[in-house]
């Protein structure tokens, strides 16, 4: 089942999964088995027992070697680039890919480079998206290293 949070209260209310209070957020757990979870734009991460799927964990690693210099640890922002928690609440996967691949320039000294040629980003866009969605939903509290399920090899 798709992980959700209280920003969609109707859907959350319909779910029976236990709600955990984490850093002020109420996070709804995924159902099913992490071993059969696959990424989708609608259901980007798997979250259960305080742990996330390996792809989301990889997103944490990749984010913190490519993005955090400007966007701050765990997407908390800095004076060079905005915090991502708010924008990730509404950003779709398609919009996310577009911004990361093409970059963005809004005002002076606010430049996001395009990452189209970066092979430490491009193959992991979905993992980074999953990580930031998990952060926005409160499944991963703060700048900590998320607990994870083991890596699942695709057969």
């Amino acid at each position, binding site marked *: 089942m798709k992980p959700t949070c209280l920003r969609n209260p109707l859907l959350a209310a319909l779910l029976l999964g236990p709600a955990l209070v984490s850093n002020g957020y109420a996070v709804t757990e995924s159902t099913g088995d992490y071993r059969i979870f696959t990424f989708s734009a609608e259901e980007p991460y798997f979250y259960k027992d305080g742990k996330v799927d390996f792809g989301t964990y990889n997103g944490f690693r990749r984010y913190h*070697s490519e993005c955090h210099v400007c966007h701050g640890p765990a997407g908390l922002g800095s004076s*060079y680039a905005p915090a991502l928690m708010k924008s990730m609440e509404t950003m779709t996967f398609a919009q996310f890919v577009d911004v990361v691949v093409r970059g963005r320039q809004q005002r002076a000294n606010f430049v996001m480079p395009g990452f189209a040629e970066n092979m*430490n980003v491009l193959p992991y866009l979905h993992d980074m998206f999953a990580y930031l969605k998990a952060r926005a939903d409160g499944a991963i509290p703060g700048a900590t290293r998320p607990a994870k399920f083991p890596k699942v090899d695709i057969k």
Partner: protein
Amino acid sequence: MRQFRYTAAAAVVALAIGSSGSAFANAELIGMQNNPNDWVMQNGNYANTRFSELDQINAGNVKDLKVAWTFSTGVLRGHEGGPLVIGDVMYVHAPFPNTVFALDLKDNGRIIWKYEPKQDPSVIPVMCCDTVNRGVAYGDDKIFLYQADATLVALDAKTGTKVWSVSNGDPNKGATGTSAPVVVKDKVLVGISGGEFGVRGHLTAYNIKDGSMAWRGYSMGPDADTLIDPQKTTHLGKPVGKDSGTSTWEGDQWKIGGGTTWGWYSYDPELNLVYYGSGNPSTWNPVQRPGDNRWSMTIFARDADTGMAKWVYQMTPHDEWDYDGINEMILVDKEIGGKSRKVLVHFDRNGFGYTVDRVTGELLVAEKYDPAVNWATHVDMATGRPQVVPQYSTHHNGEDVNSTGICPAALGSKDQQPASYSPKTGLFYVPTNHVCMDYEPFRVSYTAGQPYVGATLSMYPAPGGDHLGNFIAWDADKGEIVWSNPEKFSVWSGALATAGGVVFYGTLEGYLKAVDAKTGKELYKFKTPSGIIGNVNTYMHNGKQYVAVLSGLGGWAGIGMAAGLTDPTAGLGAVGAYASLSNYTNLGGQLTVFELPN
């Protein structure tokens, strides 16, 4: 204990050598660095002691210190380095966009001129750890500014007009400028930043007259690139052999091998040698670069005229923790083991305090200057190699494995924040970090101009304590801590010791502190508007001593901590002490100048 007076003798030597106009700048600076009224280079003098003979402000009256005047740089982010003072003029710099101001000390800091370079803001995302700049240099009536985009600019010191500029690296490939240049003889020396972007480090000398390149010595590569002589250049007394800068690398990894040179540069005029350290090998994933990765993490002694390396010493072969070797090299003449020696004292990121014979490169002392250091048991004095503990070896543990509890953290037991040495007490005063980490390396591929890191880190206070820093006094002969003052946060500010028996430093909460040089007892503190990662200086104007420091939280410490440094084991410790730095201070660049009441 010998006081060091070699600089005076060296001035004579330099004058004798001076056959061209070139040596005049050198002789001028050698004289000026001995004038305690000025603060003519970032670390006070060529020896990088950050010591001042001024004693008007002393241990007895420092408690009465008050703010004389302040000045806003108009820039947020991390303000490293500090102002220069030459006669009636103070030169203040800022982080990106790298504004420089000349302030009139005769007229309450009136702005004589202001220079702001035009730089492409796309350089911002290729700066690893905030858009810091460690200050300008003076020489030959010029102010040398090393911009974020790796452009070195010579400005007319009187008018601020550009005399020449030269590009020292390509920011599109991740090469940036953060370090303070140093003027040596007729040349100005600059390093390069970008170890997290696969930049191959080098120290480069430009002729101060016109900006033409005199020499460039790379940290790795063939001997022709590294300016290493296989027979004459030595490592712990032995010739290094042919192409030592490629033979300990696999394939072409050395071409993107890091070893950047973003720290401080010292100079011994008598030996005519320049001393500095190189940074981490690139990438941070050690599994991807087997071998010792020479000459990353290395102390270099190079001939100031030719750049040829006289000796090298690699402190951390095959780095697995990002322990850059770039911290300052402090040059003093001291009794070591009962014998008077010309030594270099260096507090490395890896947590060891090294005392090295700076003539020969012989290793004399290597001891931990923070008891928390655990990644190595000790340094083998015969081979110079740290004895690595397998549990903390991120290579041994492997890719995709999170190695935990490594001390120090990647930011080192001390980062670039320069220490100070007082010939009055014979002690070194060292701002330190007391932080440990988890480190997980993983595979990365290289794209020019894109981050090339390959590890994720978590940092937290060292076990058993509730503080992230210490300010210590160090005995470089015995290799022992004499006193240690705990600080809530890492001490990321450069220290200043004076003949008045006082040592000054700043804290991340924004305090300027004065402590007794003998005991470490706190004598004075004042909270400036923002966290201090700048370096304290002092000068005399119109017969009155002043102390100056830049505030402006940021840098590596500020980036992480301002956003909330979290400890995975916080439940076990004193949670209150880990409270976010953002509860204590805020961003903002300001100069604060202190004086005694009239």
